[in-house]
């Protein structure tokens, strides 16, 4: 089972040679794979990403992965009007799925530079996506604390 870093390297490989339009198309492809929130979990304020444009709800779970060890899982609801955010959250959900917390916490915001999204999205939007990485990492830290407590 590949690590978060290895999976993100693969995503970067997907994006790196694309032109701006193709990068947005690739984000839309990822967007279609976003795992939805379970019934009843949509719109819960505890899952709301307040840093984000448009309504975005991300639930960070820590539960046994296939190997029996605790793994990070993301499920999310992102407004139709924000496909860029939906695509980026889907990238993270895919890369993190089932991997241990320390691998997720090691992800930094150079990911956006490596994906080459800043030129396509501009500075303000890229900052919004950076905030999502931080939001997810804070969620992981909270889950770890809850499990220990």
């Amino acid at each position, binding site marked *: 089972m590949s690590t978060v870093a290895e999976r993100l390297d693969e995503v970067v490989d997907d994006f790196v040679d694309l032109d701006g339009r193709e990068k947005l198309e690739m984000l839309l492809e990822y*967007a279609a794979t976003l795992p939805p929130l379970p019934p009843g979990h949509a719109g819960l304020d505890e899952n709301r990403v307040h840093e984000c*444009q448009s309504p975005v709800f991300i639930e960070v779970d820590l539960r046994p992965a296939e190997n029996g060890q605790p793994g990070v899982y993301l499920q999310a609801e992102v407004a139709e009007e924000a496909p860029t955010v939906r695509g980026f959250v889907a990238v993270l959900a895919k890369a993190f799925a089932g991997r241990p917390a320390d691998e997720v916490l090691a992800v930094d915001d150079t990911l956006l530079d490596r994906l080459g999204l800043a030129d396509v*999205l501009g*500075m*303000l939007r890229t900052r919004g996506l950076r905030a999502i990485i931080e939001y997810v990492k804070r969620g992981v830290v909270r889950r770890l604390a809850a499990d220990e407590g």
Partner: protein
Amino acid sequence: MASYANEDVLVSTEWVANVAANPEAHPNVRIVESDEDRALYTQGHVPGAVEIDWQVDLQDATWRDYIDRAAFEDLCRRKGISNDTTVVFYGDKSNWWACYAFWTFKLYGHADCRIMNGGRKKWALEGRPWSTDRVDPAAGTYTASEQDMSIRALRDEVLQHQEARKPLIDVRSPEEYSGERLHMPDYPNEGSLRGGHIPGAISIPWPLSVNEDGTFKSADELTALYVTEGKLSPEADTVAYCRIGERSSLTWFVLTYLLGFSNVKNYDGSWLEWGNAVRMPIVKGTSPR
């Protein structure tokens, strides 16, 4: 019922659909989409529409300013826009960014700009077709004017404007106006150090100008809002601002083109500049002063 001061500046979705279906019959029309989320255009746009992005295309990447005249000319050429082209803007979010692009085109003196009333939302509600085709128009020929500073207010001018007690409109949310919050509800805080409003500014939040389907309110409703209740005068020097100048470009559009105000400027530096600059007078709370 009164009509808009400029009836022609708004075009209907039906009119645009007709252009999109018969582009050969309208060689002089260019449809332009401007969105908050760029992937919306990628996901599906009005057939034949090109995209102009407010951040990547219209803003200078180094200076905090709009692209310069030469870059604007180059942008128009690439997008198949010539000086005599009828440019029809539309987009997401009740046409915020469409109005922003419209304003930028007027800044460089483009003659014939229109807005598709209702934007993406109305087009979708009516079940009209989306296209994912790449649009690569034949290059236009373009010569831009110098910036028309009669529609753009810079910081020092706004400082004098408020000292002279001339009309100012704050179009942000009531919470941003009072200083309770530094950014739009549900939006990221893009770094204002102080909250509140410019002394003397009245609060008329932008959403009051639009309907649920993204279209503009009627001329009578807009007159009631801005002239009757807002006590604004169509001839007075008036400045509108928001946080980064996009919502206020919608209000600028409404006042200038739909109500026929003769002297409205958009303060594009807006709160992101005012709330960060040193020694700017600020009022907190719900009263203008």
